[in-house]
């Protein structure tokens, strides 16, 4: 029994560091667009408020509200498909007047809440969940996944499916069913390739695949061009980086989306392998910190919230950096606490607030 703390500095420190590095990179990427950078500062301020609010609110309330939030989120996702704002070919944003809110960011939160709530409510037998036990959850889950898929935003659709999957696996599951599921996934993936995936998505995957095995530098397809340029940016940073605001790929706009999904390449170009290692270690430290908390909580809801949040942060980092350095296809997944954008920052801060809430309020 440790005494109740007001503040878990060990949890907050890596996030503040990541946020600061993110702001430094953004100020470089947005050096010709000071206005946008200022907007991001406002977002950071707002997120601190959100973080503090969730940190010191009653966790039970959120637990109780998880179904309404999930339902509201689905309604919003439908709305997005109808009246959403189209940016770059995808309809992912709701125009709220003062900002364009990306509803799928909210979904990341609501799915973690929903899954934690449902799995907490559902008693587990000694040999674990039978998959039939989870049919309602999986069906409910499919609604936002499919809606997001049609935006189209395959990346986020896969991301939230994976998070839900990890959360399910982190509970006790019948071994035979698990093995069956894995076999099922292996069998269905060719069907996914042939009937579900769009041409441009396949193209990206092929592009990445070919790049992994050959070092060809002829990139005519747009997706390849983006990846190509961002790999050049990352690689050209060498060990110590080119220095703040001296990244030519960044400053001369060779990196596409360089303040949003590709911000990591700006950072990597200007701060090199040294900076990159520090950032990745910070993320790892944060993740280790969150996961280490799981052993000390007493309720399943909190444990699952922690697992969900950790896997969300982990997968976003993995997918984002992976795509920037050409290991994964280009999808619209931001780097948590680092990329430009209010929606992502809000959802991540909310979840971090929950984690912090658990850290300071739950009795160990």
């Amino acid at each position, binding site marked *: 029994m440790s005494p109740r703390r007001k503040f878990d500095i060990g949890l907050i420190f890596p996030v503040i560091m990541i946020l600061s590095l993110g702001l430094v990179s953004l100020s470089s990427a947005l050096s010709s667009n000071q206005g946008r950078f200022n907007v991001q500062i406002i977002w950071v301020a707002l997120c601190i408020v959100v973080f503090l609010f969730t940190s010191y609110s009653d966790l039970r309330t959120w637990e109780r509200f998880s179904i309404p939030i999930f339902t509201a989120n689905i309604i919003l996702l439908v709305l997005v498909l109808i009246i959403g704002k189209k940016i770059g070919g995808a309809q992912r944003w709701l125009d709220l007047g003062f900002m364009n809110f990306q509803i799928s960011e909210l979904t990341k939160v609501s799915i973690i809440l929903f899954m934690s709530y449902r799995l907490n409510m559902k008693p*587990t037998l000694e040999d674990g969940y039978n998959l039939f036990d989870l049919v309602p959850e999986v069906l409910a889950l499919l609604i936002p996944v499919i809606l997001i898929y049609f935006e189209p935003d395959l990346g986020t659709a896969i991301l939230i499916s994976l998070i839900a999957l990890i959360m399910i696996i982190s509970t006790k599951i019948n071994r035979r069913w698990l093995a069956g599921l894995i076999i099922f996934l292996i069998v269905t993936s060719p069907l996914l390739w042939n009937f579900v995936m769009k041409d441009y998505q396949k193209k990206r995957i092929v592009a990445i695949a070919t790049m992994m095995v050959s070092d060809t530098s002829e990139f005519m397809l747009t997706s390849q061009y983006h990846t190509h340029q961002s790999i050049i940016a990352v*690689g050209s940073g060498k060990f110590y980086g080119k220095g703040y605001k001296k990244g030519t*790929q960044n400053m001369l706009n060779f990196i596409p989306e360089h303040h949003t999904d590709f911000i990591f390449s700006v950072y990597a170009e200007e701060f090199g392998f040294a900076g990159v290692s520090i950032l990745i270690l910070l993320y790892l430290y944060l993740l280790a910190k969150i996961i280490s908390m799981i052993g000390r909580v007493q309720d399943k809801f909190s444990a699952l919230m922690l697992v969900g949040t*950790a896997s969300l942060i982990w997968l976003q980092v993995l997918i984002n950096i992976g795509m920037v350095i050409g290991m994964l296809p280009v999808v619209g997944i931001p780097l948590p606490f680092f990329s430009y954008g209010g929606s992502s920052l809000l959802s991540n801060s909310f979840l971090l607030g929950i984690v912090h809430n658990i850290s300071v309020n739950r009795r160990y």
Partner: protein
Amino acid sequence: MRILKQSEEVKNTTKKSKSLLYVMIVSFLLLLFRLFYLQVVKGDEYFLKSRDNFILQEKIFPARGDILTSDGKVLASTDASFKISIIPVFFSTMDQIEEQIDRISTVLDIGHDERNILLSKVKDCVGRCRYLPFLIKDEIPRKKFFKFSSYLTNFPGIIISSSYKRVYPYGENSAHITGYVSKINQNELATLGNYDPEDFTGKTGLEKSYEQILHGTYGEAFHIIDHMGRKIEVPENIDETVPKSKPAQKGDSLRTTILSYLQETASSAFGETSGAAVVMEINTGSILAMHSSPSFNSNLLSRKRIPDKIWREYSQSVLRPLVNKVTMQTYYPGSTFKVVSALAGLHYHEITPMSTFLCQGCLWFGSDTKCCWNKWGHGYVNLKRSLKESCDIYYYDLSEKLGLEKITHMASLFGVGSKTGIDFPGEEAGILPDREWFNMNYPGMKVHKGLLMNLAIGQGDVRMTPLQLAVLYGAFANHGVIVKPKLGEEVISQDGTITKIPDEIVRVLDINDKHFENINKALWSVTNELGGTAFFHADHTIPDAAGKTGTSQVISNSEKKMIDDSEDEKRLMTEDDALFVAFFPFKNPQIVAVAVVENGGHGGSVAAPIVYKLLKSYYYKRSFKE
């Protein structure tokens, strides 16, 4: 089966999440490995690639050196023009490139073929070459460029740079001296080395022979460009390793030996008449004027693509305006060759100045008849009269005494049949029909009298360029010094250093001065004594000149008779070529002038007035100075 307690569930999740953390660590290690590979192992390579992205290296073409006359007039210089290029790497599809080029072609007329050639070139380009500019259009005149510059600079992936256009202020007057420049061809690209495939090279004339001096050195510019290929100002030392630009260095200028007024006199004296004239300084070999008529407009030809119409007009004309008739066209020297035969006679002691031959108008030998131009006959003719009145029989008889070798040997000493070595491209050597030549061209045939007689009067097979004739008469005037003619006087480098191009002497003949004096006196009488073939055509208001007429048959008399009366044009083309050579002033010879009027008829009446115009022009401008 019992239901798990909360604490058991949490414990279970804790255990699972431990494994999850290991997966996370492993996945981040994978990222770090890849990052290490990109940034540390391959870092230098990618660094260079990132530089390729934003540093646009552009070759700056140098301005070509000027060509000047000896008296400081500009024969060739350069004018600013602009060129526009496209960089393929900034376009993701061929369609975009095509669209861009079409957009540009709305303001700058780009031909359909030109466009397609460009597009196929871009299509073929892969790898590094996509980062390099492709020329869309050059020679955009300054005026036109400024009219559209604001529109053109708005295009992404487009780069505009300045270039030069060659201009010849005197156009046709000096075209045969300067020649012209045009786009480099494959051959030159291989031999000249280090030339840009879009560059121009001298194709004829001094532009060609002094190419290396006039060309200049390329410069290099390093532009910083953004992702759209637009040149931008460098944001505060973004990369200290960007190389410094190096300006192009203008080529050295060439001062020629040409005197502008003399050159103008030469070209105006000819007008549309086909022919050639050359004035040379006797002691230095400096060419003071050189004109070939009709001429061409070098400004029209100095383009990347010469319009077909102009090219056809020039290249198909029977008057051959593109041929420099001074150095590239050979003529029968006709009677002007007689001095060589005469000198051989004196030198080999076959005759003395007082020896005479009897001219009865015609000479009968065997079944053949050879006549003098004067069918009435000259009677007894000595050396002086043989030249003054240009008696043919005298030389027929002399040739019999001399035989082939002595005449051809003497002629070869004066450079007949070999190039003069002038600093000018495409020179013809002419023909000296010596024993070797006959053996090669008429194997097994005996060189009979008739051929020998023809040679002695400059007919038959001997052919010379007007320039060779000038060198020959120059050598008579200075008693046997064969000079190497030259057009380059000095090279003026851009820093002002002047390098003289030295005069050269090919050889000095070991021939008695007396013989030259005797012949030169006879040449004086041609123009200054009543009865001389050029007496009535000479200008007696200037100091005396000594000269020789030549009226050379283009085809033999028997052939001439076969041409139908109706074929007027053909008849015109087969008229005799008129020649006149003179050195001046007789007392202290300074220059030698040659004029050839193609199909002009009698040398004295047609060619001599041209030569006298040149002598007069030279006299009035020069003599007062000296």
